[in-house]
């Protein structure tokens, strides 16, 4: 009887003498025993009748620990105490300690998440009507994906948070991780219709207080938001995940290329901190540095920087023009920021963001562009000059009037021409020549069509006026082989350029003399290619070698 009454023999030694007597007495009277209940954080003592059940014990505990009984799990001697057991059954006696675990609601086992989950596991269409109200009502939605987050949050599959915003954020995280889910959601017609309503989207975006803050700090963003064209394109892009991905890739590619030039990384960083970061922050911390979010949620900003980049590039194959707009958004000089603001607004005039975005990267990746960027970063004053140049506006306007120009920009010839430093040099020479011509022979200009598509023909020789003018007629022959729009575009460009005064590109050959020799010694005999590679990498031999090796098959 003693052993039956006691938990087992072993505890006996500690209270051997008492055991024999106590055990006899215990079953008879409901002795009050003191049991310590210990959680990882706290310890409380409970006085309960010895013969109480675990359930009763839990009730007492729940009051003290302010939880519900079903949240409590009691453990004694390595066993979980079930409600229908009694304390005696487990041998819980006076002075012993029972471990307590209070189950919080984080884990899926929380029943309170069931209602939202149940609603979520229904088809998203069923939950979308509900989601309609929620995104607008909840201000904490990250915009863009906020609406989707609302939807997706309701369609959360087994996410275990009761807190709606937590649910949402978890869902968004899942979304980020799962493009398939994203695609599914995107394909939901309700989502699409909502997305295609720019007013609604703008409302959603504006409703986010962080966004509002951001707008205050960065008025350009409000320009973006208020421009229906941009919004529409943004939404289109957002609607099409494939396109979004592609844009993302392009953007990433462009950015990574930017990084590779000496000054470019700083510019990138500034660009990021000034524009993207606040946008991303506004889109809530989960999206942190998530590039996907930067397109999806702050797609306006992505578009914003891109239009400023692309639009300025469209009208001007002139390598300086596009990056100034980009850099202006990135560099900290105040004038540039106003410049980019104006650049944005003027860029908004054109509707080419989407198409532009696609070849943004390709343009960015041209070594000519990169060398230009380098120049830009070296000379901030240049940007200012560039921006203030009235010709830029005219170029943009001309581009907007001539959509062919945009198409033409994608012409690989143009790109290859731009990538050739000598071509750019030639352009500069042309410019100067035009200036001279303008003063000396105004009548000559309108019929002047220098060929951008003639890369090396002009050579990198002396930038004198006569040389240019003599080169010019020779160039007129080359563009005849090109397409009409090309000529037109070039003409416009040159005319605009004629009015400007551009600084001279320092001769890359001189700068990279040493590196060229090294490359030669290594066996890279193509001097032109070496030069291009060196320019692209800013004199970094190793990177140049990689470029050369990478470009050999092409």
């Amino acid at each position: 009887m003693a052993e039956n009454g006691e938990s087992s023999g072993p505890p006996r030694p500690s209270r051997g003498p008492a055991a024999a007597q106590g055990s006899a007495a215990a079953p008879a009277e409901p002795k009050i025993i003191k049991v310590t209940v210990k959680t990882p954080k706290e310890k409380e003592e409970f006085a309960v009748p010895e013969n109480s059940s675990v359930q009763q014990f839990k009730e007492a505990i729940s009051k003290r620990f302010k939880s519900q009984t079903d949240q409590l799990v009691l453990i004694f001697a390595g066993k979980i105490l079930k409600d229908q057991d009694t304390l005696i059954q487990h041998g819980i006696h006076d002075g012993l300690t029972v471990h307590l675990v209070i189950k919080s609601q984080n884990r899926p086992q929380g029943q309170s998440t069931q209602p939202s989950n149940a609603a979520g596991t229904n088809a998203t269409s069923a939950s979308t009507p509900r989601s309609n109200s929620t995104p607008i009502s909840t201000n904490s939605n990250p915009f863009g994906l906020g609406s989707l987050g609302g939807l997706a949050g309701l369609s959360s599959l087994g996410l275990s948070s009761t807190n709606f915003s937590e649910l949402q954020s978890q869902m968004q995280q899942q979304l980020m991780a799962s493009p398939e889910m994203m695609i599914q959601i995107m394909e939901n017609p309700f989502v699409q219709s909502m997305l295609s309503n720019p007013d609604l989207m703008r409302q959603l975006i504006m409703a986010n207080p962080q966004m509002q803050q951001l707008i205050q700090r960065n008025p350009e963003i409000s320009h973006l938001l208020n421009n229906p064209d941009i919004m529409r394109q943004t939404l289109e892009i957002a609607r099409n995940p494939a396109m979004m991905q592609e844009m993302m890739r392009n953007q990433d590619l462009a950015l990574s290329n930017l990084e590779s030039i000496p000054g470019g990384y700083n510019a990138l960083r500034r660009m990021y901190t000034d524009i993207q970061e606040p946008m991303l922050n506004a889109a809530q911390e989960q999206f942190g540095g998530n590039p996907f979010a930067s397109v999806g949620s702050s797609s306006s900003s992505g578009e914003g920087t891109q239009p400023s980049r692309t639009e300025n590039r469209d009208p001007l194959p002139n390598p300086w023009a596009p990056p100034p707009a980009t850099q202006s958004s990135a560099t900290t000089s105040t004038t540039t920021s106003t410049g980019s603001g104006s650049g944005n607004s003027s860029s908004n005039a054109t509707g080419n963001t989407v198409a532009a975005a696609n070849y943004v990267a390709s343009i960015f990746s041209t070594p000519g562009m990169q060398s230009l960027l380098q120049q830009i970063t070296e000379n901030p004053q240049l940007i200012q000059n560039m921006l203030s140049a009235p010709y830029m506006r005219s170029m943009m306007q001309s581009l907007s009037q001539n959509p062919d120009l945009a198409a033409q920009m994608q012409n690989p010839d143009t790109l290859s021409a731009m990538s050739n430093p000598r071509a750019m040099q030639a352009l500069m020479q042309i410019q100067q020549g035009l200036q001279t011509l303008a003063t000396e022979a105004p009548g000559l200009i309108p019929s002047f069509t220098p060929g951008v598509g003639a890369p090396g023909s002009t050579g990198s020789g002396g930038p004198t006026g006569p040389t240019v003018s003599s080169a010019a007629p020779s160039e007129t022959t080359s563009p005849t082989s090109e397409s009409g729009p090309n000529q037109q575009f070039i003409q416009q460009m040159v005319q605009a350029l004629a009015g400007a005064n551009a600084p001279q590109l320092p001769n890359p050959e001189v700068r990279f003399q040493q590196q060229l020799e090294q490359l030669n010694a290594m066996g890279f005999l193509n001097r032109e290619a070496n030069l291009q590679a060196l320019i692209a990498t800013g004199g970094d031999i190793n990177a140049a070698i990689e470029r050369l090796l990478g470009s050999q098959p092409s």
Partner: protein
Amino acid sequence: MAATTGSGVKVPGNFRLLEELEGGQKGIGDGTVSWGLEDDEDMTLTKWTGMIIGPPRTIYENRIYSLKIECGPKYPEAPPFVRFVTKINMNGVNSSNGVVDPRAISVLAKWQNSYSIKVVLQELRRLMMSKENMKLPQPPEGQCYSN
């Protein structure tokens, strides 16, 4: 004492285990592990159950893991045989039957007779918090190994 304890026990040899049992019942330690005899009538003190409360900020958080521990005749000179009852995904634990590989868990591999069941449980819990384990995806809660 022995007479009142009951039928022919081998108890006297296992003072260590007795102490451990007492410790388990008194809940010494930080309350994150618990252990006790599987069967209170077990006079051999060989079969034990243990409980580990999943450490916070890990994937094991808020889960309670039940274990079976067998202390062989050579205990404490030889390490006990430990097996998870609750399904768990963790390095060193056989995913099909929950057996803890003694070579993978340092306290078992380098067992010393000063170690105890408490030490084993606490070590397993500590391993749950290690970087390699703390994020391993876990099976749904409440599943047990079939054996």
